[in-house]
Structures are given as C-alpha cells and as structure tokens.
C-alpha cells in the first residue's frame, strides 16, 4: 500500500469509525467490537505509515483548498508520523479500556463517548500529520470540540463546568492568539508549509519573531503552561477513559507536540532571533513544572494529584522545545528531548490514568489515604501504577529517564544549568508524589474496615493497563530507531 493511500486512510478511518459506532449503538457487543476494531485499525495504519516512512517513502495529500494557497494537506514528516503512531497505539489501548470501563460502570451513553473518542483520535492524527499551519489549526480546533463531550461525559455539574471551561479556554486562546500568529506568519513568510529548518528562518525580524513566539505558545493552550494549566486540573474529575484520552493521548499530548512542532518547523534557527521570548517561555515552563509538582503534594485525591503531575510533565516538553539546539551546536538536544518526553509522557500518563481509573471503578476509592494494602488485592493494576509513577520520576530504564537526561544535556549546551537543576528537582518531586503512596498501597497492612473483593477490575481494564505500563519500558528498545527518525529536527543526528 502506498504512503499516500495510508495517509488518506489514517485521516478518513476515524470518521468512519465514529459513524459506525454511532450507528451500531445497539447491540452493545457489536458497538464494542466496532470501537476496538476501529481504533486498532487506525493504530495498524499509523504503524504501517511509520514503517513506510522508515524505509524512506514520503507522501503528501491535499484534502481541500478553501482559499487559493490555503490547503488542508497532510504529509509524512517523521516527527508527526512518530507522534501519530504513538497516539494511535495508545488510542487502541484506550478503546479496549473504554469498553471495559463502560461495561463495569454501566454507562448510560457509551456509544456517544466512543464516537467522540474516535473523532478526538482522528483529530489528533490530523494534527500530527498536518503538512501546514492551516491544517494544524483546523484539526487543533476540531480536537478542542471533539474532546469537550468526553470531559463532560460524567453527567454532573462539576464535569460540565470543567468541560465548558476547557472548551471556552481552548477556543478563545486559539482564536485570540494562535490564529493571528498563523495569519501573520502567512503574511511574513508567504507560506504556511512546515519546513525542516523553520519556515520563518531568515524571513522575520527579531521583534516579530519574539511576538510571534509568544502568540504561538499562548495560543496552544493545550500545552497547559501556567496559567492555562487550569484546564487540566479542573478536568481531573473526568471519567478514567476520558482522562486517559484527553490527558495522555489527545489534547495534552497535542499541546506538547504543537509547541515542539512550532519551535522546530516554524521557527527553526529563528528561535535564536526570538531569544527573549524563548527564554521567557522556558522560565515559565520551569516555574510551571516546579509549581505543579509542589501543588501535587497538597492533593489527596488520586486524579487531582495526577493532573498536577501531568502539568509538570507537559512543561518539560515545552522546556525542551524552547531549548532547541544551542547556537552553533551540532545537536538539537532540546527538541530531541522534547520528542522523547512526548512519547514517555503519553505512555506513562495513559498507564496512570488507566490504573487510577481501575482502582476507582473496582474499589470506589479515590484518595491516597484509602490505598493502604490495596496493592495486594490488585497486584497487576498497582504494578502498572508503579511503572507509570517511576517513569514520571525519570527512573531508568523506563521511558521517562531518557528525555530527562537529554533535557539536562540541552540545558548544559545552553549554559542554562538552572534548567537542568529544575528538571532534576521536578523528577524528585514526582517520585515523592507518586511512589510513596504506591509503596503504601503495596506494603502497608490492610485496614480492617476495608471490604474490598480481590481484583474486581475486569480483564478488559487490566489488560490495557498492564500493556500501557509495559509500553513505558519499550523506549529502551525503540530509542535507536526513533533517534534515526528524528534526525531532521535539525540536520544532524543527536
């Protein structure tokens, strides 16, 4: 199958998937099979795309041209293909988990959730494979809208308010900052096509570069940089499949990916022209990282604590994107670190969301104080939770270790040792925030008033949780091919 065919399928498949799920809402068995098969097929297509691109194939398709020169186009740029494969792979696990969760909780409207999950996954793949800023913007907006019903799915006032806050914030920032930045880029550069080496490179004054960078970073609210981080913490009450989809697979990951994509493919070397803004954003990312890590300690609720740690981890992606390549350096250590962090973040967050959701669904417990001894009742789930927590903390050989190492290298390249120190402190805080309660769950005695049946979580919940946990180890194996893949982030190989 040609690369362009695979590209077309990757874009169209989620729409078909969503339509079929909506049509096959009854019987439940058929609906669930359609959802799992649809998500798995997308993952397969993205992996095939990754393999084709790995063999040197390239492709570009144009779906529409609303205005002359303004194309809705997709291509097989390596960073995008890697992200699409990761998102679609985790999306397939999410689909499996969603089916298990919906059955366990007897959700009243599973078909609606699954249809929007498919659309959200499709929008994420669209963002990943976007060939230009216009397409990126269109799918970014589509993602904002598609994820809104997922966050609002729990029919309580809190979930509705959080979802409405999320939607308004995302749309407002995108319309108010991202869109003007894109149009300005179009006027300045005469093109919107992503280009290795940066489409603004050599075409923009330092003042304009600084303003544009601020607008871009502000506009991508999904990256959850302070003060836009509140959308994640406010949405922490969403259901587990929604949290996994929105925090790990789609919105939050797209935020990190978007900032990296803009830094590497829109600015490129022009990032040095925007040094003031880049340093400002870097400082803000570090403040967010440390602040969110500290704030996590104040939360006893599992989901709330995880949401703050997600904010901290996402900030590390932004930090890497802003570090980029040091001037005259051979390696784009910052961008490479950000790309690795993106992958590690997705795998670890999905694991943690799955595990916390499984604990809540099976036991009804939501706070850390209730976890004592529960690990012995739910060993698989807590083993996955431990892997996710250790990956967040950057413990080798888990996925989270490599990006932190590269972030420190990038910080050293730039002479920004404070950044390296902050990354290390953030990792320690993550370790303390998550691993202590996990240890308590695994090793503390079970209180006598706890009446928990042994591992009531069904297989459809446990399997994706464990699989996601195992994926945090896979970066060890995949590091070399990913390194080879991402050489075009800046000319040479890291």
């Amino acid at each position, binding site marked *: 199958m040609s690369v362009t065919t695979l590209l077309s399928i990757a874009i169209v498949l989620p729409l078909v998937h969503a339509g079929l799920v909506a049509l096959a809402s009854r019987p439940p068995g058929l609906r669930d099979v359609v959802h799992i098969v649809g998500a798995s097929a997308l993952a397969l297509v993205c992996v095939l795309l990754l393999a084709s691109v790995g063999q040197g194939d390239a492709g570009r398709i144009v779906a529409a041209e609303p205005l002359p020169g303004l194309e809705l186009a997709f291509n097989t740029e390596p960073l995008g293909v890697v992200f699409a494969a990761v998102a679609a792979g985790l999306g397939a696990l999410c689909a499996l988990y969603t089916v298990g969760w919906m059955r366990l909780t007897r959700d009243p409207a599973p078909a609606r959730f699954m249809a929007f999950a498919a659309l959200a996954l499709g929008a994420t793949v669209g963002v990943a494979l976007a060939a230009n800023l216009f397409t990126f913007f269109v799918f970014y907006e589509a993602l904002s809208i598609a994820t809104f019903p997922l966050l609002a799915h729990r029919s309580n006032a809190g979930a509705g308010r959080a979802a*409405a806050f999320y939607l308004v914030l995302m*749309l407002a920032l995108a319309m108010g900052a991202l*869109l*003007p930045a894109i*149009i*300005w880029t179009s006027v300045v550069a005469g093109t919107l096509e992503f280009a290795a080496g940066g489409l603004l490179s050599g075409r923009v004054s330092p003042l304009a570069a600084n303003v544009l960078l601020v607008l871009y970073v502000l506009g991508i609210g999904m990256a959850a940089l302070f003060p836009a981080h509140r959308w994640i913490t406010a949405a922490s009450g969403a259901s587990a499949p929604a949290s996994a989809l929105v925090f790990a697979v789609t919105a939050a990951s797209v935020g990190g990916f978007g900032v990296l994509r803009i830094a590497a493919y829109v600015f490129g070397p022009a990032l040095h022209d925007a040094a003031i803004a880049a340093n400002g954003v870097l400082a803000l990312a570090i403040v967010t990282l440390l602040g969110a890590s500290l704030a996590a300690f104040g939360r006893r609720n599992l989901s709330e604590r995880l949401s703050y740690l997600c904010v901290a981890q996402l900030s590390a992606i932004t930090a890497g994107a802003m570090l980029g390549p040091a001037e005259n350096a051979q390696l784009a250590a910052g961008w490479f670190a950000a790309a690795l962090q993106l992958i590690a973040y997705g795998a670890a967050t999905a694991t943690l969301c799955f595990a916390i959701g499984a604990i809540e669904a099976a036991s009804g417990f939501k706070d850390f104080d209730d976890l004592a001894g529960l690990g012995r009742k739910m060993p698989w789930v807590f083993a996955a939770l431990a892997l996710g927590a250790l990956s967040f903390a950057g413990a080798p050989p888990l996925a989270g270790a490599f990006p932190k190492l590269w972030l420190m290298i990038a910080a050293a390249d730039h002479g920004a040792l404070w950044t390296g120190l902050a990354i290390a402190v953030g990792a320690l805080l993550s370790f303390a925030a998550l691993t202590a309660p996990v240890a308590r769950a695994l090793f503390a005695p079970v209180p006598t008033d706890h009446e928990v049946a042994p591992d009531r979580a069904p297989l459809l919940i446990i399997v994706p949780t464990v699989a996601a946990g195992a994926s945090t180890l896979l970066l060890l194996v995949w590091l070399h091919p990913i390194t080879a893949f991402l050489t075009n982030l800046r000319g040479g190989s890291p």
Partner: protein
Amino acid sequence: MSALEFIRTYAATLLSLGPIAVGVALTVLAGARMAVAASLAVALGIVGVALVLALSGASADPLGAGAMALLAVVAATALCAAGPVLSREFDRRTQPIALGLALMALGAALGAAQTRDLLRLVIFLMTGGIAVAALTSLSVARERAVAPAAFTAVLVTVCAGAIALCGVGLFYAAAGAFDVTAIATSLSASPGREGMVAAALLIAALVAFAGVAPAHGWAADVAARTPHGTASIVIVVARIAAFVALIRVYGLTQAVTGSGAATAFALGCACLGAIGVVAGSLQAIGASDARRLAAHALTAQFGCALIGLAAGGADGAVAALFVVAAGAMTALALVVGAAAARPQLGAAAPMSALDGLAAQRPFVAAAMGVAAFGLTGAPLTAAFLGKWLSIEAALARGWYWAAAAIVLASFAAVFVAGQIIERMYFRERSAQIGPAPAGALSMAPALLAAVTATLVFGWNGAAPLEAARLAARAMTGAP
C-alpha cells in the same frame, strides 16, 4: 423577446418593484391564506430571477448580481418560514399586512442592493426604512416598548435619508449625473471639494441605514422588537442591502476624491470598522435576546468587512464581500432558530428560550450550533475564511490595530457561541418557558441554506471567492 431575455432585461425592475407591488396589494386586499401564497410565489419568483441572472453569464454589475443572489436566497427561505410563524403572532387581519410590509421592505432592499443610480438608492432605502418601522410597530398593541424602537427607525430613516439626499444633490451639482459610473468618470479626472463632501455625507447616511457602528443601536432595538416571522428580512436582508450600497459608494469615494482624501476615507472606514467589530462583539456577549444578539453579531461582521474594504485593493474588497456573505448566513440561522425555539411569540426572544433546545429540536439546535461556530470564525466555516482574508488584508496594510480588533472580536465571539451552545445542549428547559413549538419544518429551508452555505463554502470557498473577486475588480478597477 424570449422569456429568458425578458427576465434578464427587466431583472432589476422585477426584483425590486415586483415584491413592493405585491406587498402593497397584500396590505390593502388579501386575506391571510392568500398572503402566504403570494409571499411564497414572490419567494419562488426572486429565486428564479436570481438564478436566471446567475446562470446567464457575466453581469455588467458583478457586485449587484452577487448581492442579489445572496439576498434572494436569504429572503426566499425567510419568506417560507414567515407564514406559519406570523400565524402564531398575529390575528388573521394583521398577518397579510405584516407580510405585505415585509415584501415592501424586501423589494426596497433588493432595489437598493442593485441600483447604480444614487437617487433611486436613497428612495429605495427610505422606502425600506419606513416599511421596517411600520412592520415593527405592528407589535405595539402587544408590547408598548415596541413603540420607541419603531419611532427610532422612522427617525433614522428620515434623518439619514435627508443627509443622503444632500450628498446625492452635491454629486449631481458636481457631475451632472446620478449614476455611479458617470459620477466616477466625471469626477475622477478633477477631484474637488464637492465630491469629497458629497461622498462623506452619503457614507454617513449609509452607515446609519446599514446599522454600522457607532450608529448601530437602533438596528439592535428594531431587531429585538420586530415580529419573528419577518425578522430575517428586517435584521438580515435590509441591513445587508444597505451595506452593499455602502460598499458601492465607498468604491466611488476612492475614485472621486484625491489621493490624500481617499486615504483619509480609508482610515476613517477602518476606524469605524474597528469600533464596530469591538462594540458588536462585546454587546453580543451581554445580549439577553437572541435577535438582538444576531443584530450585534452582524454589526461586528460589518466592522470586519469595513476593515477589509478599507485595507484596500481587490483583496480587501474580496474579504469584505466574503465576510458580509458569511455574516448573512450566520445571522439568518440565529434569527430563524430563535423563532423556532420560542413557544409563545411575543415581541422579545429571550435567550432562555434556547434552553434545552437540543433535546426538543435537535436539527434546529444543530443548525444554530453551526451558526454559533461560524460566529467564532471556527475553521472550515465560511466566516473563518472571511476573517482570515480580513486579517490578512489589515496586516498587509500594516494596520495591526485593526487586525487586533478582529482578533478581539473572535475572542469575544467564543463566549457568545459558548453561551448559545451551553443553553441549547447543557440546560434543562424550564416549565415556565414551555416546549419548543411544532412546525419547524417551514424553517428548514432557511436553516438548511445557512448551514450548507456556512459549511460548503468553508470547505471550498472557490465559488463565492470568484464572485467576490469579480465584484471587487469591477469596484476597484483592478485587473
């Protein structure tokens, strides 16, 4: 002379005087059923004539032809919905009068949009203004608060008409003609003070007629008080027609004034646009009435269009025309949707009438949802492309403040759209409001047309863009 040739030759007369004549007849003669039948016949007629004009090749006046096609679609679909809604609003004696006045306003609007004769333009606008005022005053018996709105409409029509006539008179004194092309030819060689003053007066009057900020307050008041059945014609058709006339006269000012004055006119229009885009958007957030919201949203779109127009060149004019067309479709969906949501049709259409609409009228809610996203300029809607073109034109001119105003408007529109969607999809409909009325089928053509145009032209704007290009070239003389 074949029928086709006849239609082509007399299209302007048929489209303007036809509805006016039928309207006059209805107010005097017909019963309620006859009035509905006549209005549907007029709807079919104007669509047919507009279709013949569109399919018969290049027009000598692309701006008029394009505006005609847009207004014909809006008006025809609005007339389809008018009969059933008016039957819930008025008794059998008042219904034909309301429809008759609406047809008079429609004919005047169609005439104003296409005429190149300035004297006729003013007459059409004044006729339309009086018809709108009379139409609004029909609800006085039900709600006394309607009276000031109707009176304001009369006052604006008379004052703006007088100012416009002064402008037209000055043009005639300077150029010896009423025709736009003749005036442009006569004055472009030797721009004088008379031309400048005449242009300023005419633009000021058209700003008031179209309800462009800062003279937009009356338009919002009238929009909130006019009968639901004919609201689309008052809020959308009449204002868009006046705005098209404004675009035409703006083109004339660029031709007949010296370069310094032309730049001053451009800057002035851009400032008006920036004021409109900000004021309209912010007032839309605070609107407690769905039709007032639609009127303010249209004011914001006019502002956006003025910025594009003033930014200059064919690209700016294209942006303006695209924005106006997209704004018309968005406003149409909002106004018709508001009527479909309101169980007891009084003069007002409170936002609370939208509560829980999605559960009771999912298709109406979906159409209004698309319109709401169009308001924000969401991608793949026609409004997005309009905003894109306007911002691009403003940035190319170096007017960052104007681009910022459009961005601010988009920002504000998110809250407006969020409010509409939140009410329709996330609120329970209280018993006090009552269930949404039956009979939304008559509104389907309007909603379908609005949604189709918003989405199809958002996906591929080639066709309207080409029409806008032709009009812009004819207006600016660009190759």
